Structure formats: structure tokens, C-alpha cells
């Protein structure tokens, strides 16, 4: 169908935009209307609907070779259509995708001379329909940089405050009020790092002794109360990876030895559920292990956990994998093994009733799409920048 759509001259997604959501199409006219008849073809600028399709995916590109020019690509994992680009800026990690406002947020770092000069860190607000930057909030030039995770920044569950992890190497969190469009303040989190939202006005950070720091914000976004848990693992024995995934009121993390640590965040204090292993004894003998950049994904409604697997020693805990194993979170049973078409460092699953499994390898500018039920490779979307890291669905 796409091919025939294409031939009629108007791209599929543009027609969707106009027909289904009556989205704004920004027409750049030629000065005055009287030129219109002289110019048979109008030049326009495309726009997107306020509500995205569930199979539209943000593909985050840190542009490792040119890290001050990060980008995110919006692609339709069904039609393979490339929908648009966000130029997100330096040291790009991930987008924040609020559901209560047609906006997208991204923290970024800029220098007056690209790689040198004066540093400025900002949160940029993009319009979800036009993909244009519409506002920015300057934050302290302290953002934590390096390999991206989903926890380098976050929105509180009420979507009011954006949290940005800092490391200078002193550890802290910048709080930005996205409603008032202002920087609220910096919360010191000594010995603890990254931001995992755990409630309307609450987040937690990972500490070096294997504990979690919970920070409660007041109505204005200030640090109201901090509480530190008991250590729930030994970081020198079997470190828990920070590359976790949230499923409802739990955060799931996996240790280097593929032990699942589930943290219940329903209450004021995190509760640590009994650990369980992704591996059988035979898996362990065969050296199976989780690895990658974004190595866990969940389908919330179905209660499924997807893990990116490879074989290797402890020092391969960040290596790509070409297997995805699927677990039923209720029974903790492995229900499926999927063989990917190639190595992947990131996996993601769309959250709709007819989900897609998505995979990407940082060394290959391509998104691959699978059926999560059968493991069948459905399609690939290529020419996506240079170094794909986090995959984000709506």
C-alpha cells in the first residue's frame, strides 16, 4: 500500500496527518496569493499529528564521532517511513516524552565553539507536531555524560518536573519545572547517581554501596525528604546493572550474573522483592549473559520481560547479543527464545495490543523489527545516522 501511496505524490504519513487527526500543515506561501496560480507546485513544510501511532519509534543517535551533534529520528516501524529528525544537541542521551502535552524534552550541552569555549546546558522543548524547538531552559553545566541510559534524565510521574543527572564528578540532580519552564534547583545526591522516577514527585538513585536513595520533591520541586535504603546487593560481588526497565510499580534490574532484582516502588520506600535468575544451570554452563546498552524491555499489559542475551564472561557485560529471551513476569518462566538477524545493543517493545519487538546495534545505523510472538524478522529501516543507542516508544 505504501508504494501506491507514495506514487500519488503525497507521503502516507502526511495524508494520515491531515485525514485522521486534522493536523496542522504549515504552508509556506509565496508572498501573496496572486503568485499561487503562477506556481503549480506549492512548497510546504510537513507536520505530524499531536498523537503518534503506537508503532512510531524514536531512535536516539548519540553521534559518537561528532558527539556535539546528537539526533533523534522518528520512524514508523510498520511502513518503514522516516518521519522526522530532532537535532537534540551535544552529549545527547534520550528524549522525555510527556503524554499530557504535545511536547518533547531533551537535555543537551552546547559550547560556543562546538568543541570548546563556554559550556551551556539546557533542556530544549520541542513541539511534537512541528518538531521545532519552541523553548529552552538553562540548567547548570554539570550534566553527566558518557554512555547513555534511560536514567540520565527522567520525568516525575506527574510529568511536571524533569530530572537531569549530574556528575562533575560530584553527583547531583537538576530539577526543572516544565510547567513553569524554569530551573528549580540542584539536589545533592552524594555517592548516588542517575534518576529513576518512582512516584508523582519522587525518584530514586543508585548508590555505590548497593543501596537506593529516594528523593521526595515538594510542590515546587525542591528536595523535601531523602531516604536511603539498606544495600540490596553487593556491588563488588555481583553488581546490578543500572540499565533497568520499569513495569507499572516496579523497576526491574539485572545483575552481571543475570539475577533479576525487582524493586517495588508502590510505597514511600522501595521494597526489594526476592531475586530470581534468568538462567538455568545449563544456560550458566554455556555462559549466557545479558549485555548491551538497553538490554531489557517489557510489555506492561502482557507482563512480559524481554532480555538481550549473548555468551561470554563477566567482562562482556556490555557486549551485544543476538538472542532475545522472553519471560512471563508472573511465573518467571522463560516462554520464548528469539534469534535476532544480527547483533543488537538495544531492544524495545511497543506497548500496544499488537506489539513489535525492536532492535538496534550501535555499530550499524539500522532499526530491525520483529514479531515478539513468533520472533519473525518483519523489516529493517536503514540509514539511521551513525550510533544508535536508546529506542523510545510512546
Amino acid at each position: 500500500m505504501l508504494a501506491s501511496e507514495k506514487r500519488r505524490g503525497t507521503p502516507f504519513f502526511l495524508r494520515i496527518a491531515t485525514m485522521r487527526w486534522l493536523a496542522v500543515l504549515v504552508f509556506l506561501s509565496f508572498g501573496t496569493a496572486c503568485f499561487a496560480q503562477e506556481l503549480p507546485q506549492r512548497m510546504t513544510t510537513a507536520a505530524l499529528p499531536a498523537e503518534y501511532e503506537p508503532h512510531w519509534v524514536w531512535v536516539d543517535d548519540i553521534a559518537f564521532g561528532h558527539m556535539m551533534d546528537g539526533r533523534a529520528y522518528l520512524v514508523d516501524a510498520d511502513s518503514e517511513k522516516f518521519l522526522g529528525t530532532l537535532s537534540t544537541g551535544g552529549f545527547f542521551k534520550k528524549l522525555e516524552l510527556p503524554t499530557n502535552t504535545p511536547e518533547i524534552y531533551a537535555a543537551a550541552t552546547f559550547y560556543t565553539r562546538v568543541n570548546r569555549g563556554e559550556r551551556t546546558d539546557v533542556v530544549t522543548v520541542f513541539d511534537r507536531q512541528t518538531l521545532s524547538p519552541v523553548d529552552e531552559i538553562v540548567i547548570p553545566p554539570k550534566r553527566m555524560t558518557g554512555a547513555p541510559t534511560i536514567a540520565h534524565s527522567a520525568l516525575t510521574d506527574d510529568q511536571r518536573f524533569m530530572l537531569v543527572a549530574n556528575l562533575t564528578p560530584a553527583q547531583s540532580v537538576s530539577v526543572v519545572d516544565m510547567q513553569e519552564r524554569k530551573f528549580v534547583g540542584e539536589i545533592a545526591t552524594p555517592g548516588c547517581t542517575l534518576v529513576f522516577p518512582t512516584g508523582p514527585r519522587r525518584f530514586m538513585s543508585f548508590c555505590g554501596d548497593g543501596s537506593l536513595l529516594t528523593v521526595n520533591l515538594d510542590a515546587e520541586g525542591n528536595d523535601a525528604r531523602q531516604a536511603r535504603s539498606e544495600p540490596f546487593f553487593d556491588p563488588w560481588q555481583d553488581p546490578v546493572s543500572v540499565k533497568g526497565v520499569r513495569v507499572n510499580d516496579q523497576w526491574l534490574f539485572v545483575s552481571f550474573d543475570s539475577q533479576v532484582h525487582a524493586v517495588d516502588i508502590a510505597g514511600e520506600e522501595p521494597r526489594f522483592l526476592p531475586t530470581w535468575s534468568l538462567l538455568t544451570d545449563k544456560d550458566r554452563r554455556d555462559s549466557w549473559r545479558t549485555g548491551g546498552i538497553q538490554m531489557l524491555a517489557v510489555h506492561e499489559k502482557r507482563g512480559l520481560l524481554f532480555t538481550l542475551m549473548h555468551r561470554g564472561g563477566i567482562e562482556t557485560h556490555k557486549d551485544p547479543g543476538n538472542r532475545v529471551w522472553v519471560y512471563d513476569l508472573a511465573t518467571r518462566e522463560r516462554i520464548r527464545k528469539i534469534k535476532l538477524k544480527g547483533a543488537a545493543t538495544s531492544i524495545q517493545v511497543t506497548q500496544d495490543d499488537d506489539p513489535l519487538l525492536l532492535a538496534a546495534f550501535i555499530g550499524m545505523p539500522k532499526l530491525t523489527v520483529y514479531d515478539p510472538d513468533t520472533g519473525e524478522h518483519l523489516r529493517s529501516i536503514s540509514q539511521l545516522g551513525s550510533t544508535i543507542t536508546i529506542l523510545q516508544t510512546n
Partner: protein
Amino acid sequence: MKLLDRWVETRTRRVAQRTSRRHFVGRLGVLLLGGSVLPLLPVARATAAPDDGLPDEATLPGKTGDPTNCNYWRHCAIDGFPCACCGGSETACPPGTELSAVTWIGTCRNPGNNKDYIISYNDCCGKSPCGRCMCFRAEGDKPVYLPPKSNDINWCQGTNSNIYHCTISVVIGEAGSG
């Protein structure tokens, strides 16, 4: 050289106008959100004509009707990324990019009716280069001392940002009719 002189003169005036506009809207945080009014390219105006005669693109042979392909008939002088691969189309800039007001002009033959058409290659600007479907065709391309005929020039000019993202290929009239 009359055409060229007029082109340069008009551009010079326009840039002067733009400069103050840039100072007004060009700072980040007050970026314009569409609705720009762009003056007509004089070259285009001179040759503009209705395109009633354009054959249905679905009937064109091979990939000459597919704007995501470098063999698309209107791409005969493109040097860059067709916007149809970047979230736009052959006549639409991708979301969040700004259409350049000035442009270069090519002449491409439509394989449906074998007529030559004037194509305006307008760059879409303000985001890091799209990087998809790189096309490198130079039919009728001239050196940079003939700017309106040169695709070696970054045509993101008169825009809030001069960063090149992709190019659209717009039919502005039949060749020879202007």
C-alpha cells in the same frame, strides 16, 4: 547576464531585510513556528506556468516516479538528500525544517511526456544533515560563479539557520515557456 544581475540584486536586498528579521526571531527560544512569508524567486517567477500537463507520476517508468529514489525525474540536478527520505516529500520540507527562500534551478525531462521542466531545488534548513538517500546528480550544473545554476552552493540562505538538512525538487514550470 541580465538574469544573473537581477538575481544578485534581488538577493542583496532580501538579505538586508532578513538581517533585521533574524535579529528579531532568530534567537533560540523564540524560533519561528511556521507561517513564514517567503518572496518568490525571480527566476522561478519568470518561467512559472501551470503544470496541468504533468503526467501522473504513478505511470512513470522504473524509479523515475519515486521521489525517494535518486533516479526520480525531478532529481536530475540534485546534490544532497531528497526530503522524501527525510520526513518530507518532493515538495515538502520535513517537520521542523525551514524552507530556503533562494535556490538553484535545474531543467529535467519528464519521461512521461518527454517535455523539459524547470525544477527549483530548495533546501530545507536548520537541522543536522538528514544523511539518507544521498543523491549526486549534476545535469546542467554550472560552477559557483553562476549561482542560480550551481548545486555546489549551500542554498540554506536567508533562513534562521544555514544548516543544510535536505532538498526538495519542485516543478515551477515548463522549460522554454519563460
